[in-house]
């Protein structure tokens, strides 16, 4: 039985980040890791985005918003284990986290202007990348407070796992860019609300741009950027902090994926991107694998009455076909990233949404149990 790389990680890391595209079981893996760490004696927090209702209830998240809450010990004892440390959970509310960030860091005279700005409202709710950024921002804040020995972050369901990593860079890139400074500085110095559009360069550029967006849009946007720029220093510092946190040796990534061959590209991209950015991939978790039904089941089936035998054999044949499909996918992932540990988790009989199921998932993640 080979030891799981997640064992040492649970004992030593301070931050684990579960990434992967939507529908692969990230939330379950994140919750499982925090649960195991707590049971083994490290106080842990799982920060999830939008868990299944049953899982949320099991974690005591039913009525809670953006704050951390302790999962009652009695619930955990129902598993037949007595956790040696506390387990906390929270459900991240993106909009509220943005608002808190602004309220805390914008100068008082700008606060209302930002919060009520129409552009801000779409920035904080719908702008692509802003969810990813704000979840990292929250992680950074939680990590700085140092109240938990381990924080496990479940990430928003990006179309591409890679989008997530790029979020702090995009913010930093924006704030640190010469172009942005050039745009904003004269207006800041003059204390004007709104930018001089002529700063954009030759005026026909500006005219053409406003033909594209409308003059008023440009003006409103520039006044929003100006208001936001009062937070620039704070933002920049935090965005840098976030970026550092991702590279910190005490931070590790767990890439969650399914066994389908079409997921392969994503695994490879992500792997390359993390390595390029000096971030540590602890493992690729291949979730919901159909195990191959063992030969003895066919022998058992052969002893059944004919009608039942047909039904059972058809079911076994179907399972075999599913197992073969999955094995193909896993073999490809394995050969494509030979240096990364791959952890296989079987598909359980029903959906995995309660603590008992998390516990079972944990046995595979931590290597107590393996697929044959």
């Amino acid at each position, binding site marked *: 039985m080979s030891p799981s790389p997640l064992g040492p990680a649970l004992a030593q890391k301070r931050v684990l980040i579960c990434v992967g595209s939507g529908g692969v079981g990230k939330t379950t893996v994140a919750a499982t890791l925090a649960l195991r760490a707590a049971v083994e004696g490290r106080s842990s927090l799982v920060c999830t985005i939008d868990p299944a209702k049953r899982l949320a209830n099991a974690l005591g998240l039913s009525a809670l918003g953006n704050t951390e809450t302790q999962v009652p010990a009695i619930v955990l004892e129902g598993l037949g284990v007595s956790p040696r440390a506390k387990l906390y959970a929270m459900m991240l509310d993106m909009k509220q986290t943005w608002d808190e960030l602004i309220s805390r860091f914008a100068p008082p005279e700008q606060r209302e202007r930002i919060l009520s700005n129409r552009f801000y409202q779409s920035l904080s709710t719908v702008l692509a990348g802003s969810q990813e950024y704000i979840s990292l921002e929250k992680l950074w804040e939680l990590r700085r407070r140092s109240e938990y020995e381990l924080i496990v972050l479940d990430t928003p369901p990006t179309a591409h796992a890679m989008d997530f990593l790029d979020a702090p860079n995009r913010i930093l890139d924006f704030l640190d860019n010469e172009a942005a400074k050039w745009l904003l500085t004269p207006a800041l110095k003059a204390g004007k609300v709104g930018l001089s559009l002529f700063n954009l360069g030759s005026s026909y550029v500006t005219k*053409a741009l406003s033909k594209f967006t409308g003059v008023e849009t440009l003006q409103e946007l520039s006044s929003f950027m100006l208001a936001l720029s009062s937070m620039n220093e704070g933002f920049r510092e935090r965005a840098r902090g976030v970026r550092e946190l991702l590279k910190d040796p005490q931070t590790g990534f767990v890439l969650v994926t399914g066994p389908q061959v079409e997921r392969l590209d994503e695994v490879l991209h992500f792997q390359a991107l993390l390595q390029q950015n000096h971030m540590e991939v602890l493992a690729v978790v291949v979730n919901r694998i159909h195990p191959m039904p063992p030969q003895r089941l066919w022998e058992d089936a052969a002893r059944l009455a004919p009608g039942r035998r047909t039904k059972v054999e058809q079911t076994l044949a179907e399972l075999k076909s599913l197992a073969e499909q999955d094995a193909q996918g896993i073999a490809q992932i394995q050969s494509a990233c030979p240096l990364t540990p791959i952890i296989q988790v079987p598909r359980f*009989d029903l959906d995995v949404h309660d603590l008992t199921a998390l516990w079972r998932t944990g046995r595979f993640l931590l290597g107590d149990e393996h697929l044959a």
Partner: protein
Amino acid sequence: MAGLLDKRLWIVSGKGGVGKSTVAAALALRSARAGRRTLVCEVNTQERVSRLLERPPAGPDIRLLEDNLWAVDVRPQEAMREYALMTLRFETLYKTVFENRLVRYFLRFIPSLQELVLLGKILFHLQEKRPDGTDRFETLVLDAPATGHAITFLNVPQVLLRTVPPGPMAREALKMRDLLVDPRITAAVLVALPEELPVNEALELHAALRDRVQIRTHAAVLNSVFPERFTDGDLQALAGYPELLTVAKTQHDRAALAVLAGTKLERNLHVPVYPVPRLFVPSFGRAAIEEIMGHLEPLVTGAS
């Protein structure tokens, strides 16, 4: 019940991993077989539809896959260029303006501009005409992003109408919204798996599309349904073989879950639900898509 063939824009969405691209590919193929010039659009993703149909990838330019069937992967950069060229008319002007470093910076910060140009390009193709005045594409199948992103994406025109002051962007947004909310043109097909999360997401998506975007759900597809096979008697008879019993019980539970999921979808969405059985094939390619197409026949034609 009207079939999809009565509509022109077929939007396929649902939770990640439920088989949206598979369903979109099957629907597009069926539309093309009905003799309609059909364009299937994927949105800034790793292309799946062309691969499922065992054709070379389409890429960002519209490409003919086979008779009556075209595909395109709509990507931000190319879409932005096309969109800008449409509004600005001149290539040189585009270059001066949009290849200006400062402008590029500025544009990145305009909320939802990327989604706007992506959706704008798709809806542009919906309205494109041939020289004889007929529609260039009679059916447009949109393999839309997963739930949350789909809502954001399709909601862009409405958000913009609230956000931007009157002007070109607002006018564009208004045109886009009018197309999307017109039930004679647009039909949303929600895909789910017979499991708790995908079903709940389909219900959320349905409500969000209805309340925020004003797009009506036309139908749901319940994908990967396991057939009902074992009777209670069968299960009792397997008591002496615990492992086989587990196998049979799992199959039985999954089949039961599919029935439940179908009922839940039907009751909450008030639209027909079309089950597609789980296929047990070594690799998922064209043959599988054709088989799925057969199961979606009543959805497309409206025949019961």
